[in-house]
């Protein structure tokens, strides 16, 4: 109906190679960005912004990171939370060493530390594949989590072992610390996520992304075609960990605002992000957002939505029911559409294009 490319002619190779070749897609993207930058911060309540939107953005970034590794390069990782933790602790150390540098720069730089650690733990991926690699990444998860508790240098020898988020400003507006309003924190998150998503999209549509996908589809064949496995896999680990690290730093500095970080970056978080990637769709950027939106909003909906429509649930029961529901939904989505929400989205678009005909 209204979603149809009829009459849009491509007159250059550039137009043919565009990421969004259809005009309606570009309009849709502009509308989404408009909603994210204008509508939500001005009309959303503080509650919506700080406990729905910011978690959604943080998880999206982490999911993009894991999707680069698992969805595009085919290397399963169960250590995502640990790499996020590296980002958070690196950011904390950087803020103590360089108090004068802008916090946004520090958040991005802390991603580089995470990338370095990721490369280190990615080294075994050259010899190990599939589930064996998944277990190998658990080594990273448990070892790094142990470091977060046992290496007091990481949390500046605090008695509590917690990360204290200092007050930092941008143009004299506080963006981290207790005084930062949800709106400013949201804007910082949104800016980072938009820029990094744009970067990831360009990376994935270019030579590097193609070589990742070649490795995913069959690494021996890719090697025979002249792709260097060592460089490609390690680059995937580095970029993936960079995204996870930035997400982790954002999580502590812009969402939690400090606290006992070692517990946050537990194996359960790794699993949750893996769920987001699988439910959203392996090997799809938009899928990472779908998965994050789904799983980040589910606990909030269960907690506040169900009592609102008259289903009384106490705290503990709600938690148990959430667990059951998440489990059941994972199985349901895998059965209905193993390729995730992104595939459903594509099917929906295809239906619109051919409407009113079935195909």
């Amino acid at each position: 109906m209204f979603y149809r490319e009829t009459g849009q002619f491509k007159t250059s190779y550039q137009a043919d190679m565009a990421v969004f070749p259809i005009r309606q897609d570009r309009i849709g993207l502009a509308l989404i960005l408009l909603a994210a930058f204008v509508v939500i911060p001005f009309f959303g309540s503080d509650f919506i912004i700080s406990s729905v939107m910011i978690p959604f953005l943080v998880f999206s970034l982490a999911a993009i990171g894991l999707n680069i590794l698992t969805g595009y390069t085919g290397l399963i990782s169960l250590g995502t939370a640990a790499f996020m933790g590296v980002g958070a602790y690196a950011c904390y150390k950087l803020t103590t060493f360089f108090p004068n540098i802008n916090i946004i720069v520090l958040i991005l730089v802390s991603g580089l530390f995470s990338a370095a650690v990721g490369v280190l733990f990615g080294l075994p991926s050259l010899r190990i594949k599939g589930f064996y690699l998944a277990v190998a990444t658990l080594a990273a998860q448990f070892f790094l989590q142990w470091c977060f508790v046992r290496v007091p240098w990481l949390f500046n020898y605090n008695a509590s072992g917690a990360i204290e988020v200092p007050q930092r400003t941008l143009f004299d507006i506080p963006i981290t610390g207790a005084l930062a309003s949800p709106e400013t924190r949201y804007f910082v998150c949104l800016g980072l996520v938009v820029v990094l998503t744009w970067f990831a999209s360009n990376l994935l549509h270019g030579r590097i992304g193609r070589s990742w996908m070649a490795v995913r589809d069959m690494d021996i064949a890719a090697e025979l075609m002249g792709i260097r496995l060592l460089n490609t896999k390690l680059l995937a680990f580095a970029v993936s960990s960079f995204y996870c690290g930035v997400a982790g730093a954002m999580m502590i500095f812009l969402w939690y605002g400090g606290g006992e970080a070692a517990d946050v970056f537990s194996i359960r978080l790794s699993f949750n992000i893996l769920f987001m990637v699988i439910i959203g769709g392996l090997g799809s950027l938009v899928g990472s957002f779908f998965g994050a939106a789904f799983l980040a909003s589910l606990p909030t909906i269960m907690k506040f939505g169900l009592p609102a429509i008259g289903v009384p649930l106490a705290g503990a029961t709600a938690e148990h029911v959430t667990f059951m529901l998440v489990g059941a939904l994972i199985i349901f989505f895998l059965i209905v559409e193993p390729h995730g929400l992104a595939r459903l989205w594509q099917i929906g678009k295809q239906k619109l294009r051919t409407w009113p005909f079935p195909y």
Partner: protein
Amino acid sequence: MDTLYAVFIDPFMQMGSAPDLLVQTLWEGLVAGVLYALIALGFVLIFKASGVFNFAQGIMVVFAALTLVGLYEKGVPAWIAVFLTLGVMFLLAVTIERVVLRPLVNQPDIILFMATFGITYFLIGFGESLFGGNPKQMIAGELGLPRGAVEMKMLGGFVSFQKIDIAAAIIASAMIAGLAVFFQYTRIGRALRAVADSHKAALSVGISLNQIWVIVWFAAGIVALVTGIMWGARSDVSFALEIVALKALPVLILGGFTSVPGAIVGGLLIGVGEKLGEFYWGPLIGGGIESWLAYFIALAFLLFRPQGLFGDKIIERI
């Protein structure tokens, strides 16, 4: 130089000077290893027969133990509760086969792996809403399991063996022997081995895959129940076990995903290595290294033999 001494010489000096402590540590490692091996055994059974990497094995252990204790608390006599729990595990196997595995036939491995994550989450929520999240006491005494410890004088000191650990080792060996006999000599066992070798060939000679899957998940359920009882007798029955059950993964790496003897040898190696490492080398870097040492042992091992100790050789073709 001091560091080198502390890492490479001092721990062995300690071992030599107090052999009774060494024996005690070894024994504790072996006991922990038996439990790891039992969980890994459940993984291997299912992986061999259906190619599913069953992440839910750890939670099945907790679920079985909780059901047993829950039934006993409702007033069911202990031994009847055991059989009822076996019934529940059978129902669970049938349900999983019907609801999860059958619609997902022929999907890629990672999808099935994720589906078992779904099962894990569902069982956590289900178990907690049925039995509550509080740790429970295993009914070890009522099941006739021994309590207390035996002290033995050896090597110039005393070494104490918990009776329950000895019982666990014996029961585990008996169960593994039983499974081996079952696999080797019964009709169903042969069918299971056929399915493990090749799904298609097994189908073509008339073996029902669905039936085999139920049987193998039920077998894993039995293993889970035995593991749960043993584990619960040593500490409480609670969902904290879920994290400990992850230790079965390095065991699998060490032993290979498809080998039953591998699971056992791997379990014992990991258990002993972990305890020795924690006791003799742990204090050097602040203790608590048990949480990741097993993974590093497995990882170091994997670099030399990517298919594990007894795993099938990985052959890749284009």
